[in-house]
């Protein structure tokens, strides 16, 4: 059902945990399935995301999507990070089963929320 990549990110999630002194936090909940994702960003004076971490309440696809998303944004500028799509996440994971595509959307929404909060500061 899941690709090896998904299972790897589920078993060994990258950048998991909360972040002290984060510059921005974004949290979204899926109305559809009840999953919740929270992401923390550390951003330097040049708008580069230097550190990122997440916490997720959800299935393997949700955990893997969050984990891959943190890998994709690390080192990117805010502008670049905003261009990450659900397809980037699902492609990096080698694809997600159809009913689980919304998990990758949740990851991009959490990121957008964090960036929005950063920009509002």
């Amino acid at each position, binding site marked *: 059902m*899941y690709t090896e990549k998904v*299972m790897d990110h*589920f*078993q060994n*999630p990258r950048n*998991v*945990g*909360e972040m002290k002194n984060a510059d921005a936090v974004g*949290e979204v909940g899926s109305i*559809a*399935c*009840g*999953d*919740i*994702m*929270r992401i923390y960003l550390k951003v330097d004076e040049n708008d580069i995301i230097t550190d990122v971490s997440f*916490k*997720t*309440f*959800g*299935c*393997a*696809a*949700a*955990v893997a999507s969050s984990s891959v998303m943190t890998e994709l944004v690390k080192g990117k500028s805010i502008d670049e990070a905003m261009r990450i799509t659900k397809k980037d996440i699902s492609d990096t994971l080698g694809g997600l089963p159809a*009913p689980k595509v*919304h998990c990758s959307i949740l990851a991009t929404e959490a990121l957008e929320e964090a960036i929005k909060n950063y920009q509002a500061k």
Partner: protein
Amino acid sequence: MRKVYLDHSATTPVRKEVLESMLPYFTEAWGNPSSIHQWGRTSRKAVEQAREEIAQYIGAEPREIFFTSGGTEADNLAIFGTVEAKKGMHIITSSVEHHGVLDACQYLEKQGYEVTYLPVNEYGQVNPEDVRKALRPDTVLVTIMYANNEVGTIQPIKEIASITREAGVWFHTDAVQAVGSIPVDVKDLGVDMLTLSAHKFYGPKGIGALYVRKGVRPKPITHGGGQERKIRPGTENVAGIMGMAKALELAIADLDQNMKRITGLRDRLIQGIRENIPEVVLNGHATARLPGNVNMSFLYIEGESLILSLDMVGVAVSSGSACTSGSLEPSHVLMNMGMDHQQAHGSLRMTLGVSTTAEDIDYVVSELTQIVEKLRAMSPLYNSKNL
């Protein structure tokens, strides 16, 4: 790695003796029971012998047993067969039925029938008085399951049956999870129709039966030959029928002993989890519960994550989480018991069977303890609570 199968409510392995009882009917006695030559007569004799045995094990007459392709078909036959046979547009069921009943009722609603889905209390039980209140002059059927497949809650079938009997309305019960796990006697229960399925009691998949009390006669829902007294036409699954009879014989022979042993293991699992893992909730009823059913919610984490993590350490379980349903909806059973979304999301069903040992249980408790800790460390809900 240790392998522990705790998903016996999904299906069970076929016992060796059961398989052996079936094999001759593939290669030796393979005749069509409807043929009048000796090949046919041998098969007919075997089928009728099996029918007699199965009837006896559930307190029925042989003529009251109709073989089907399993639980789903027997449920469908009871429901569609009844609305075909009786005049009236109203059906009463519960809000926690298996999809074999639930989806059939929802289909009938689309055809213009009215269906009352009776509520259940927090333990998943129907109140018999609600059945009485829901009865109408145009009610043709009451269908309420004997034991729930998710939370193991046992319904007050006898009490409901006395109400429907008084009202003269047919009463069907889906006893798929009950037969082979707890005593089932159709006369004692007083039901008009009862569904059973062999693969839940160590028999083969694809064979089941509908008990239909004498004097009750649903119409066939498939049309063809005259088999099963025209109620369920089609050449009999002879080997399957033989396997079901053998499986039921073995289940009944060991019933008391297994009930006692498995209930003990069930309570060991519940207690082990409660002692080692904080913030867990037992779903379902404490005592009106199938011997092998444990259903618990692990707050702040999600069921599919639990299933996959347990799978990696050799443990097979299931969940009522939205993430495992394919529909993004958590289990209707848990939701209709009044559970909040998060609790349903973190539910885990562990169903024990005849091969489960105390060592299995202790292994599961210890693995689960570590897994829950790891997943909770990842959960934004757990965190925010402890900040």
